[in-house]
């Protein structure tokens, strides 16, 4: 009995409720005519799409900068990379590689500036991160209209200048990762091997980083700032590094998302994109100042599972599409739960 209560306390009631909810959806699915194989396949695809953006939360949580509400900044760097890759007419896998190469300097510069800003406002990072994210999306809205892009698939047809709201990646880097080594089981289950392998690769890089000297220093800064300073670690430098990493991961994350989704969404697209990633990692068990890769994997899977399963199952069951409302309640409820905790993360 004690073991069970200990497990419940460490796992946390909200996570248990969400896991049970997801399991019940999977169990009900075949009874209402929703194929489990398709749903599982969809969940895995969405897991791959969002995984790296959730991973982007980890460095900043480790260094004590809180939840990265300013993920849109990294997403913007990724958008710049993607649009530049298309502008210069790169196709296929090379296109994806060039997008990463173009996005990286933007991500590093934006991350550096953003990190310096957060260092000046220690203690109030989360709120400022949110509004920096919003302001930069709004600012880029102006920029997307003005920047000198010329490629015919990207600009408005009539005037010939100013980018469109959504740009298709078909023919460029759509499916580059997902289609790599993909395999089918039966008729409905499609496994996007390339995307999952890429996620595993990046996750491995992040995990390896946190086992280096720099990485351990970052964790120290987040756990106990005074101890870290006493050990001779330059706190501001480490925090800036974590923000730069987080922004770069955000850029990579949105590129992976786009290659699977098939579209680049500009203007107000990235506006609210931080919230799903934040909910996902919190559902996975992270807290405001502790997060592991396991949290990322579990959280993204649970969150995307709910997002995939709820519409199809609920629709077939009670013939109402409540998915949007449930998504809002679940994701924001999770964030609220995490914000009101004082304790560390679990697992």
């Amino acid at each position, binding site marked *: 009995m004690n073991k069970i209560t200990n497990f419940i306390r460490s796992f946390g009631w909200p996570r248990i409720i969400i896991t049970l909810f997801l399991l019940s959806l999977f169990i009900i699915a075949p009874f209402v005519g929703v194929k489990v194989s398709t749903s599982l396949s969809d969940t895995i695809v969405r897991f791959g799409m969002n995984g790296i953006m959730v991973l982007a939360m980890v460095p900043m949580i480790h260094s004590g900068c809180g939840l990265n*509400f300013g993920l849109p900044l990294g997403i913007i760097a990724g958008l710049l990379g993607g649009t530049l890759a298309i502008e210069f007419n790169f196709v296929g896998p090379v296109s994806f590689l060039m997008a990463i190469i173009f996005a990286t300097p933007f991500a590093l510069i934006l991350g550096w500036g953003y990190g310096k*800003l957060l260092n*000046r*406002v220690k*203690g*109030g990072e*989360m*709120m*400022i991160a*949110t*509004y*920096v994210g*919003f*302001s930069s999306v*709004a*600012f880029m*809205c*102006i920029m997307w*209209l*003005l920047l000198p892009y010329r490629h015919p698939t990207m600009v408005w047809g009539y005037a010939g200048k*100013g980018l469109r709201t959504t740009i298709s990646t078909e023919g460029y880097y759509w499916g580059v990762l997902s289609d790599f080594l993909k395999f089918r089981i039966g008729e409905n289950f499609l496994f996007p091997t390339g995307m999952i392998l890429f996620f595993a690769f990046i996750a491995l890089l992040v995990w390896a980083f946190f086992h280096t000297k720099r990485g351990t220093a970052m964790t120290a800064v987040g756990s106990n700032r005074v101890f870290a300073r006493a050990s001779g670690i330059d706190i501001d430098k480490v925090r800036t590094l974590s923000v730069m990493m987080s922004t770069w991961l955000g850029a990579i994350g949105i590129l992976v998302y786009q290659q699977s989704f098939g579209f680049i969404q500009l203007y107000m697209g990235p506006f609210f994109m931080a*919230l799903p990633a934040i909910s996902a990692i919190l559902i996975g068990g992270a807290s405001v100042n502790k997060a592991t890769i396991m949290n990322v994997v579990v959280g993204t899977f649970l969150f995307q599972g709910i997002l995939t399963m709820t519409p199809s199952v609920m629709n077939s069951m009670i013939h*109402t599409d*409540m998915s*949007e*409302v*449930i998504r*809002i*309640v679940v994701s*924001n*409820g999770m*964030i*609220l739960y995490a*914000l*009101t905790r004082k304790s560390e993360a679990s697992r």
Partner: protein
Amino acid sequence: MKERLKESGKEKFLHILEKNSVPILFTVISLIGIPLSGYSLSYLGQEIVVRIARNSFLIIALLVPIMAGMGLNFGMTLGAMAGQIGLIFMADWGIVGIPGIILAMIISTPISAFLGWLCGKILNMAKGREMVTSYIIGFFINGVYQLIVLYGMGSVIPIKNQALILPRGYGIRNTVNLISIRKVLDNLLALRIGTISIPVATLIIIGLLCLFIVWFRKTKLGQDMRAVGQDMEVSRAAGIRVEHTRIVSVIISTILAGYGMILYLQNIGTLNTYNSHMQIGMFSIAALLVGGATVNRASIGNVFLGVTLFHLMFIVSPTAGKNLIGEAQLGEYFRVFVSYGVITLALILYEMRKRRDVERSGRLLAQQQKSEEV
């Protein structure tokens, strides 16, 4: 031989400039934008008067939590939602005019009180992170609001007036026509000065609210709130029930936001069921910050200055953008950017100033001690 510790006159001037940087910046933007947009002064004057009457109540609702040290109450959307629910029932029961508005206010009060209590309780669990938390609470309760209004109403909650219901049979429509109460309060005592029509009744109500706030500050509860806002631990030691006072401040703010939303909507005349409340929070906070308020100090003067400057910028930007660069869309985006940018700037300045004030008072104290040693 005591040295007089004092900052030089120049330092003092720079300090004042920095403290009021946001309103000054906005005045400059407006001064550039107005001639660019080509609007006449009388048109702008009328617009500003209308907007002051429309928005001030909501913004004044933000003053109470700032007094109590809870920062910017992004949770005012909860009050806005309660006000909207009140209006939906009013529209359903077909009550028109001033009695309709009063009915909506009466319905919204218990809902606002409950939501405010809930919000306050959650905020007490997240001390130090009130602003982010109230921001997320706004989204969360929006989900619950949608659950009630989009699914509950018409099915579980009986709605008589079929015109309000979506074609599928339940759930309120995206827009609810409020023609029955449109401008009733504004036109009650409308005064014309030249070409400008002034909604005197609404302004009287706003004036009464200002008096209420001034009086409230002097009551015991108001003093308790200010003490809690200054320092929670000291107030607790002085015997003030800190958590209770914080919750009360949020409840008052939410109830006032509910009334403010009803006043806002009676001016506009249409209820945008699923969108109005989310935007209103952001715009009200931006306006307050533009008026020179900070996260821990705001006055009634900030409210009116803020409404004027913020809405001037709002009206002027699209046309100014079009005339300047040739794209009207640019002006729209510029407006959004400036709204978010001003909140970002205010939040950054607040955090930096918090740090700098501690450093500054420490430095002055050290100077004083040094001069006393001599």
